[in-house]
């Protein structure tokens, strides 16, 4: 798919397979680089070979394709920090759900990558909403009695995808390990959040014990361990700090406990939820723990989120915490792109505008070490051209590039809209596309 500039190929008289890169010039848009250059009222972005080649107020270069972005807004593509894309098609149709498992054999070792379906209808839909990458995580449902009975708090490994719908769209595996503490952890661990905490502690301890005595354990010349070797293997990158541990917690006191736990085991922590994060913002900043929050959530929906408020993102960011904003809880599957709306609300409640843009792109890329998230030389060309302010609910993407490739913005929903645009009697609709 990568193309060299056509004129090059013609001049050379050869076309080398796989080395045919299209250049794209996005002209005259308001560009938020989310990098050193900051925001430019009017600028050109040159994309070559899937990368950003140059950003400047005016670029006098020719390109295979020119996108007129005058009056438009150009940003890095939205990156969803938490989703179930490609693992869930219809939540209430069990055959289409691969995001969770029951049984005791796998916890941290669960790796849903083989179940990932890049042809899910949810992918074009969210892409058309401006999402170019997403982190996909397994989950454990507390509605599932067998999952609760298993008393397992590790959900397994997350991976990252590009939303181009290609079979090779898994961008990175083992992006983070996910575990439940706080109130959900308590439900999963037999009734007390302390027990969930102990389970994670034990698992990390055993992972270290396994690391230090691997040969003897493998030979069977060691004490009986509580966790399977597969689970302990899966925790190795967590305890050696190369893979973050994503932990759910909302209540301030839970967050503090999680910070302590991470410190004790020298684990790279990412906090998911953090409804009361603002209450312990300084501690989070000091411990350099990034958070993934739903910035539109202000409901005291449980006793662990009595302090939920709309300026959580603003307060955390002001304290120096790296914030990633996800879509609302209910939108982790079909409407992942609504992280834009949450970020817009965060701006309405004090989060600086560019920080909000970063919280749905740059920061997510940083936290999970993904490509994209900025517009600067050498950055992966995941770019959205918006008809207006991307955080505004009345705005929408007009162009989406993933790794420099222009993407289709057609979705099942636009197909249905077009088919039934003018409802009429008869059966003619069945012959319209």
């Amino acid at each position, binding site marked *: 798919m990568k193309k060299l500039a056509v004129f090059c190929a013609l001049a050379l008289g050869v076309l080398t397979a796989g080395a045919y890169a299209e250049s794209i010039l996005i002209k005259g848009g308001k560009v938020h680089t989310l990098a050193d250059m900051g925001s430019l009222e009017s600028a050109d972005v040159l994309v070559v070979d899937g990368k950003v080649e140059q950003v400047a107020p005016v670029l006098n270069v020719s390109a295979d394709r020119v996108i007129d972005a005058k009056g438009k807004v150009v940003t890095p593509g939205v990156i969803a920090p938490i989703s179930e894309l490609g693992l869930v098609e219809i939540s209430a149709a069990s055959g289409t759900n691969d995001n969770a498992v029951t049984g005791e054999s796998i916890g941290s070792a669960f790796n849903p990558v083989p179940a990932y379906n890049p042809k899910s209808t949810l992918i074009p839909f969210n892409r058309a909403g401006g999402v170019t990458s997403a982190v996909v995580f397994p989950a454990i449902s507390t509605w599932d009695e067998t999952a609760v009975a298993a008393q397992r708090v590790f959900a397994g490994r997350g991976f990252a995808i590009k939303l181009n719908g290609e079979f090779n769209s898994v961008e990175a595996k083992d992006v983070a390990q996910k575990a439940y503490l706080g109130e959900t952890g308590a439900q999963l661990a037999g009734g007390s959040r302390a027990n969930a905490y102990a389970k994670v502690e034990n698992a990390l301890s055993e992972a270290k014990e396994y690391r230090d005595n691997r040969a003897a354990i493998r030979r069977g010349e060691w004490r009986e361990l509580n966790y399977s070797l597969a689970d302990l293997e899966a925790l190795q990158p967590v305890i050696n700090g190369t893979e973050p541990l994503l932990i759910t917690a909302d209540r301030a006191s839970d967050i503090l406990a999680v910070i302590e736990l991470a410190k004790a085991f020298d684990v790279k922590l990412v906090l998911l939820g953090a409804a009361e994060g603002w209450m312990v913002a300084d501690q989070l900043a000091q411990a350099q723990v990034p958070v993934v929050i739903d910035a539109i959530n202000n409901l005291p929906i449980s006793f662990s989120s009595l302090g939920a408020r709309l300026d959580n993102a603003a307060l955390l960011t002001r304290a120096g915490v790296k914030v990633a904003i996800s879509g609302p809880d209910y939108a982790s599957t079909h409407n992942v792109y609504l992280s834009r709306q949450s970020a817009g609300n965060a701006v309405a409640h004090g989060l600086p505008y560019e920080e909000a843009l970063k919280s749905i792109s740059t920061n997510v890329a940083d936290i999970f070490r993904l490509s994209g998230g900025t517009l600067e030389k050498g950055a992966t060309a995941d770019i959205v051209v918006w008809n207006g302010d991307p955080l505004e609910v009345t705005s929408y993407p007009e162009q989406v590039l993933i790794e420099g490739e222009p993407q289709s913005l057609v979705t099942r929903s636009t197909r249905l809209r077009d088919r039934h645009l003018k409802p009429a009697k008869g*059966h003619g609709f069945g012959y319209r596309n």
Partner: protein
Amino acid sequence: MQLHSRFFGRGIAALLCASLLVSACGEKKAGSEQRSADFARLDAFPSTYSVTQSRPVLIQGATLLTGTGEQLENTDLLLKGGKIAQIGQDLKAPKDAQVVDGKGKWVTPGIIDVHSHLGDYPAPSIESSQDGNEMTSPNTAQVWAEHSVWTQDPQFPLALAGGVTTLQILPGSANLFGGRSVTLKNVPGRSVQDMKFPGAPYGLKMACGENPKRVYGSKGTSPSTRMGNVAGYRNAWIEASNYKKKWEEYAKKGGDEPERDLGLETLAGVLNGDILVHNHCYRGEEMAVMMDIAKEFDFQISTFHHAVEAYKVADLLAENNVCAAMWADWWGFKHEAFDMTEANIAIVDQAKACAMIHSDSGVGVQHLNEEVAKAMTAGQRAGFDIQPKDAVAWMTSNPAKALGIDAQTGSLEKGKMADVVVWSGNPFSVYTHVDQVFIDGELMYDRSDKKRQPRSDFELGILDAEGERL
């Protein structure tokens, strides 16, 4: 696994399929002319089906299987105004006519599947789409299958590509009385009423045998035996007779209006002759019992469905004017389906009872011509002289009789609905394709033209946002 459990679930209701002969279906019984109430509520959910046929169609020089026992070689067929206008040699094409070169092709009436669950058991088959079997009481005569139909079931267009122009959607077979059926034209519809065959009688689904007794017996309630089944039918008919009488007396004498009862309305509609009984029934002796019950309460059974043992009582069926809808070779999945012969349809047919194929399957409905071909061959091997001109009736005119719509469709006869299939060759070859399907004279399917292949909403952008499923 899934197919099996679904099949078993449905199998119950489908067992007792008493085939109602032609005349019995459509006609009111003499003597029960006290039609004081519209028990069938024929206008409650009226058909909004409409035809947009605009130009005449002339199919030239094809081999016609008329569905009335004739095979006409090198013959023209003219469709006009939604009707079959003319059959003959060297017909002149009217102005603007669409001309179909029928050389080497065969033409049959549109296929009618008397036993389908499309829309009620749609694809994809997921937890939330199992809407065909109200398994909550042995008698759920109050439910109507049409109220479960998902009109966007992609199985409808697939059935169309198999030449099916009309189908009866039945509720499932877990209950003694499963509910009311609906007959649909196989056209894209936004509402089920857009698909409803205008004026087609309703059916009542009943089920004999293993299914009801297993479903309710396993819950520790009645029925748990075949005799329990029969007691259940008879009790319900007693109640329905009383209900009917109460309304008739009210019509005659006035007074307080009796209270409506949805379930009894349907049963009274049967007693009144407005609703046809479609009875899932596998075994010969059970069919005999059901025909006795019909006599006891003075109603007519239209058709026994899944009638694996119809061949054992074919003479009784003929005598009682009851049809049988059968498979070519499905058998053995339960005890009552064990006594199978592939000559079943042929034997019933030769005994002068009204015999037909049926599918009860989203796959089978696409290949009913092949199913008929197998049954025809089995008949020939049994020594009967059954030719394509005869066998075609098993998928066209006979199911039309069973559904009480044979005056409108089911055969190539002047004045009938122009429901017509053009086949690439002999329809009883596995290699033959459906080339074109006309419903009321309108080209609804054309194998060579993607634009004349309907797609349900479900199929849009489902594998690829910009494409269709197929």
